[in-house]
């Protein structure tokens, strides 16, 4: 190597060392935008903390348990509300295509905060307390959710296609929006179908 080549090696090495030394300060000033997708998860698990064993054939006077969970991947702590709603098969569900929640009033609700990258879970116990049965229809008058009793008065007629009297217990996820200072429907809902057998 001649002297010019040695000089080039010296300069490149010095520049590399300078960049390494300045990197912590550069990292504090220049923020690199994160490209990861931001979203929230909402789930319902069976009583054994598995995606199985969900209550389906239900009867009056028995308590059923599931677990509700929410995962936060929004890049910061998030403030959520989960509304527990109950409907028969003809009543409306939320419409995620235009971010519209179900117009049905909530029975129970959860409010909580979740740190970014973490999740939250809570048990949800429900029981049908008063149901009127006719030959091909039934009317759920009262039910309890987490030991709070609600008047429901929800009728259901016999579904001859699926052979049952069907209801759905479903959960809507709402997210607090700091800009509007209110909760907004977060386009997530899950539900479990229930067949009123007795």
């Amino acid at each position, binding site marked *: 190597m001649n002297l010019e080549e040695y000089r080039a090696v010296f300069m490149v090495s*010095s520049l590399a060392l300078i960049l390494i030394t300045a990197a912590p300060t550069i990292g504090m000033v220049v923020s690199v935008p994160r490209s990861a997708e931001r979203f929230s998860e909402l789930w319902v698990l069976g009583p054994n903390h598995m995606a199985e064993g969900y209550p389906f054939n239900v009867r009056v006077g028995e308590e059923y348990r599931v677990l509700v969970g929410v995962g936060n991947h929004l890049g910061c702590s998030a403030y959520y509300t989960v509304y527990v709603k109950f409907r028969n098969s003809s009543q409306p569900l939320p419409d995620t295509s235009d971010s519209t929640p179900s117009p049905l*009033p909530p029975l129970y609700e959860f409010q909580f905060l979740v740190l970014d990258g973490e999740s939250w879970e809570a048990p949800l116990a429900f029981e049908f307390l008063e149901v009127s049965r006719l030959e091909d229809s039934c009317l759920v008058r009262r039910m309890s959710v987490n030991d709070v009793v*609600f008047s429901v008065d929800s009728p259901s007629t016999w579904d001859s296609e699926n052979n049952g009297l069907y209801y759905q217990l479903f959960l809507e996820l709402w997210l607090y929006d700091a800009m509007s200072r209110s909760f907004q429907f977060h386009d997530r809902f899950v539900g479990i179908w229930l067949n009123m057998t007795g």
Partner: protein
Amino acid sequence: MVNGMSVLKSFVFLLVLLVFVSAVSVFEASALSEDVAALAIEEAEGVMASAYEAVLKAEGAGANVSVLVTRLNDAGDDLAQAHVSYRVGDFEGAARFADLCREIGEGVRVEALGLRDLAVAEAGQRFRWTMTGSIVGVVAIAFLSFLGWNVFKRRYYRRVLGMRPEVVTCEP
């Protein structure tokens, strides 16, 4: 006889009046407690929102907010219970839960703001130290490189100048 009838009429009138007044006062008390509960819930919602926003600011400033989030979750539980109680007509319970929520939320909000100020001050100090370290490091590297290059160059020249020409016979 006429006097007795008059007394009886007055008694019945008074009884009816009493029943009416009690019914109205019970209704008013119920409406009042509903209004009180609604107001308490509204206040608690405002406090919860402010507390959450303060926690977000603290988190954005780099503070560890996990303890505050845990406490705010307790407040969230109370607020949810307040809503549920209100929905089922338990206005006293609703007001009580809302007050509990407000109490916790206010505490969290004040702590979060303090934590944010602390985190901002710490971040500023950390930035100053890091920048000072970087500047000192860059100057040191530039100086040492310059010095090293001069030493290297001198030795290089010395080595080149110290070389003796050698005659090599070139045979055909």
